[in-house]
């Protein structure tokens, strides 16, 4: 018990995320008899494959103190490329092309953000539009479609009860990124430039390398997510996938990242995404219209932000009080000492 207590005290955000996801799961499991079944488990893992990637990408960006707004466009571009070339080149090759393109786009973005020393939101708003244009161009302003819908069936075959090749791939990706972030120098640099950028740069961390790595991973995740959606549905739209930004951001914030950067981690991202998936799937089970999902996600994000902002304001006021109290005590001590010196 004490071990558990210690763990909660040292990881309050993660504990909160687990509690929240448990509550959401519990609510739907109680209100809907079909929710807590094996088939639903498979459906949730299938959703996790896409949304988890976006949540992971945004988590990394926010850890580095930036946010990648172009993630939906990048995913849409990858989806269009994959679907368009699957007929002529086969699914694996077209998937590789899409991933190379999206990763390269991410790297270029990261390089320019570091080189121009601008905030990522500024550049990624531009690339959001630019990549939509490229995707429209690549799709020739149409909805691209596969001619043979059986080709990509392999990515949705059921394995080991709950998983498919797509979700296994995504889980492997999570583990790799988690190892990278926690145990390599480059991963720690990403935390450093997010939490204390000026100090990190002064200590000799180059801004370019972590920025390029973060945005390359973000691009890779977006591309993989888009490609999986495209292959699974057999169609892709250049102007689609706008909703992933909101869902991914909600997932990242539930997972315990702070907008100030330097906080959070891959496990949080996974739990955050699962929470969003429980909510999504549960709402579908309760026959809620699609637009209501957006409403609930919006409310969830605002609540999490209010919680974070509120705790920050509270911390600040506590600290200020502490400083004032300390100064008062010091002043008293000094006066007492002065009097002692004067009298003695």
């Amino acid at each position: 018990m004490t071990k558990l207590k210690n763990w909660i005290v040292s990881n309050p955000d993660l504990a909160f995320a687990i509690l929240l996801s448990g509550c959401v799961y519990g609510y739907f499991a109680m209100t809907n008899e079909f929710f807590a079944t094996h088939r639903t488990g498979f459906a949730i893992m299938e959703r996790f494959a896409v949304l988890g990637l976006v949540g992971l990408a945004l988590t990394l960006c926010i850890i580095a103190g930036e946010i990648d707004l172009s993630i939906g466009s990048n995913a849409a571009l990858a989806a269009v490329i994959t679907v368009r070339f699957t007929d002529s080149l086969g699914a694996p090759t077209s998937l590789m092309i899409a991933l190379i393109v999206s990763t390269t786009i991410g790297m270029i973005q990261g390089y320019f953000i570091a080189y121009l020393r601008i905030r990522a939101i500024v550049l990624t708003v531009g690339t959001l539009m630019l990549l939509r244009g490229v995707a429209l161009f690549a799709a020739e302003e149409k909805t691209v479609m596969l001619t043979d819908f059986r080709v990509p069936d392999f990515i949705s075959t059921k394995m080991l009860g709950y998983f498919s090749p797509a979700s296994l791939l995504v889980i492997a990706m999570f583990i790799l990124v988690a190892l990278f972030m926690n145990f390599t120098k480059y991963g720690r640099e990403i935390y450093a430039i997010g939490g204390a950028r000026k100090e990190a740069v002064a200590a000799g961390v180059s801004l370019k390398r972590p920025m390029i790595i973060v945005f390359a991973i973000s691009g890779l995740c977006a591309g993989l997510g888009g490609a999986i959606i495209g292959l699974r549905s057999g169609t892709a739209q250049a102007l689609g996938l706008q909703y992933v930004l909101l869902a991914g951001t909600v997932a990242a914030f539930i997972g315990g990242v702070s907008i100030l950067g330097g906080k959070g981690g891959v496990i949080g991202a996974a739990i955050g995404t699962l929470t969003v998936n429980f909510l999504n799937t549960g709402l579908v089970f309760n026959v809620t219209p699609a637009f209501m999902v957006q409403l609930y996600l919006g409310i969830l994000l605002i609540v999490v932000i209010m919680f974070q902002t509120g705790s920050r304001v509270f911390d600040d006021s506590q600290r200020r009080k502490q400083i004032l109290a300390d100064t008062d005590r010091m002043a008293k001590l000094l006066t007492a000492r002065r009097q002692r010196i004067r009298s003695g």
Partner: protein
Amino acid sequence: MTSATTTSNPNFVQRFARDHSPLVIALVLIFMAVCIIGAATAPNFLTVFNFKTIIRDAAIVGIMAIGLTFVTLSGNFFLLSMKETAALAIIAFATCMAAGLGFPMSFLITMAIATVAGAVQGLLIGLGGNPIVVTLGAAGLFFGIGSWWSDNLVVSFRRPHGAEWLGTGSTFGLPNITIAFVIIAIVAELVLRKTSFGRQVYLIGANRAAGRATGHENFAMAIKVCIIASVCSAFVAVAFSAQVSSAHVNYFSSEFGSSGDMTIMVIATVMVGGNSIMGGYGSTLRSSLGAVFISTVDNMMVLHGFNSGPRVLAVGLMIVFSIMVFALVRRGSRAEE
């Protein structure tokens, strides 16, 4: 970079050439050349009618961009909820009109809703929430409320109605929405330059610590600028709804307009106008000119017969280009932060 600066400084070209790196100068020259060649070769580009079309197209995005400029100038980046605020407002307006409340009453109710929407976002931003994340959440919320209210259906109201003068009417041969755009642009510029509120926007945007030291907290400012931005997008929504006599939450999403997402178009306009995204530098005049500029390029490409793909691409290139130029210019001319 705008014509206003050029006329006020006779040596502008020389100063520009001296202050900036050859890379920046080359970029600017290439860009100008593309524009001039495009304008000269496009059929029917240089006609009065086409000019009117350009300004009318610029009005809708321009009014929203003027509202957003206040937010950007005060150092609160931008609101990702412009489109969704407009969607909520258009549903509110059309529902009121369909219920037979008349134009003045419907207009007031819409503006009241927009004010509340802006105030809520401003409150959260003022308390220290990140503007991007707060407004991303608010966007989902407003869009959801709009869809839920209208049941995701088209709300229409019958002609003749009291709002036609705003939607389709014209005065002295100019559409009323164009006149509204010009009036709003002038008023906004006067507010920014001549009133103490306007100067406070610049102060807080340029240096938040200095603002706080002189008693101007960002808390009140964030609420005020968010209300201005929301009211501007609600006004656009009203004008648009008056024009088509109907409303749907998707009117401002990707299928509307030529170049995709409305929110991003508005942000693009603010950026292409050359306002500093970190705040404190820029003006609403720049945003208005940015709107006219984007509209001109779009118009030129339509006249050349381009599809939506290349046009979205062109707007995207313009944003990225202006971001890079302004970042390079700033890096060359000012001490690093």
